[in-house]
């Protein structure tokens, strides 16, 4: 006997064009599912959570596995680019090290060879490790559907656990990241039950950069995972950091505020109270680490 049964039956279709995918999703509705790495999809199928009749492999669509960096336009990462490819891509490492750090924190090496950036975001787990980085880097999700292409800011993409702004006949084809501001620094701090390899109990991305228009001379962005129904920005904490002089006192105050912005739940991995405390601890640690690079 297998530990768990194999995959339930379905038909596999390798899509050649985005329009073919859209047509299948329109015709088959819930019975068709886009598929890239399968690391979330197959688990949910095996657990009986979803029962697609058609699994549409979209990772052979033109450009969907490309990473394109442009010194003006910024970075475009195809939805089907794997976590390991994101983490080691020279342009990502050079210009978006925070994204590389986040991608590298997902699960295990062999899983990161399959898990994709687009899949991680589409799955919309509150714990998605690449979500906080994508939020603070002001990433935009590129969707393709019956009405052509559209872009949704990451801040508007996550609607609830497993729920996104993706329409029923749309697919995510890429994620676009604008050029980071000059002199920016970022860190993704993740607390799991193990040091590496686990889902996050709390994930905190901190991103900061000098900005003359801010009273404090700096702006910081803080992205949180695993502490609310959706990955979110701690905007009230960010405001404190833009207003008040950077340093330990302000960082402590901002970390406290970030904690207040989190609305976690108790679950098998941690209690809500512990998660809140860890938002404060990790935000403070992240602010110190980023400040060390900025100052």
């Amino acid at each position: 006997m297998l530990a768990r049964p194999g995959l339930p039956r379905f038909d596999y279709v390798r899509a050649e064009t985005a329009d073919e995918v859209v047509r299948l999703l329109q015709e088959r509705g819930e019975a068709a599912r886009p598929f890239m790495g399968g690391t979330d999809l197959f688990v949910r199928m095996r657990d009986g959570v979803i029962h697609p009749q058609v699994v549409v492999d979209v990772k052979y669509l033109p450009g969907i596995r490309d990473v394109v960096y442009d010194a003006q336009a910024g970075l475009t990462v195809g939805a089907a680019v794997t976590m390991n490819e994101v983490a080691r891509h020279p342009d990502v490492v050079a210009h978006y090290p925070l994204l590389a750090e986040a991608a590298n924190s997902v699960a295990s090496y062999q899983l990161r060879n399959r898990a994709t950036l687009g899949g991680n975001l589409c799955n919309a787990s509150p714990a998605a490790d690449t979500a906080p980085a994508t939020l603070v880097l002001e990433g935009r999700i590129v969707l393709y559907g019956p009405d052509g292409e559209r872009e949704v800011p990451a801040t508007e993409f996550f609607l609830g656990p497993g729920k996104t702004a993706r329409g029923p006949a749309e697919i995510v084809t890429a994620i676009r990241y604008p050029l980071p501001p000059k002199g920016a620094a970022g860190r993704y701090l993740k607390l799991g039950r193990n040091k590496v390899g686990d889902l996050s109990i709390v994930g905190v991305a901190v991103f900061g950069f000098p900005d003359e228009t801010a009273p404090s001379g700096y702006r910081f962005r803080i992205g949180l995972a695993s502490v609310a129904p959706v990955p979110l920005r701690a905007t009230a904490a960010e405001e404190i950091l833009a207003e008040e002089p950077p340093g330990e006192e302000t960082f402590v105050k901002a970390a406290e505020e970030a904690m207040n912005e989190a609305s976690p739940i108790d679950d098998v991995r941690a209690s809500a109270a512990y998660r809140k405390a860890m938002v404060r601890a990790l935000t403070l640690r992240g602010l110190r680490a980023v400040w060390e690079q900025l100052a």
Partner: protein
Amino acid sequence: MGMHSITVTVNGEKEYLEVPSHMTLLQMLREKLAITGPKNGCSAGECGACTVLLDGEPVNSCMVLAVEVDGHEVVTVEGLAKEGQLTPLQQAFIEHNAVQCGFCTPGMLISAEALLKRNPHPTEEEIKEALVGNLCRCTGYIRIIRAVQTAAEKGGA
């Protein structure tokens, strides 16, 4: 139910197979080709007992569809030794008794092999990180790590 004709190179042998859409690479290896090195543990990409090399990179074969490997190359633990000659890594596993029940060993060897290919002189921390997706329930991690270190000292995988 969709059937697919695929051609795949497994441990250097070209195989021509008919596989259903929902068949995983692990099922294909074990149930079509009688290659039993890769094991079915968790079926969820957590335990790594099913780890194989796909075009040289480790993947959880329980999370890959057989139809996806059409035109690609797969190496399992059976494909590591050449002409009965164990690899330095396999030799080191024997020397260190880095095996208890053996269930995790094929996946451990594949992940460690891939690590030494991309990083011939890993630190202990790097070895632990590379093997985090391979669970050993006999708690034999220290011997496994020592074995990888020994193989690295002897010039890689």
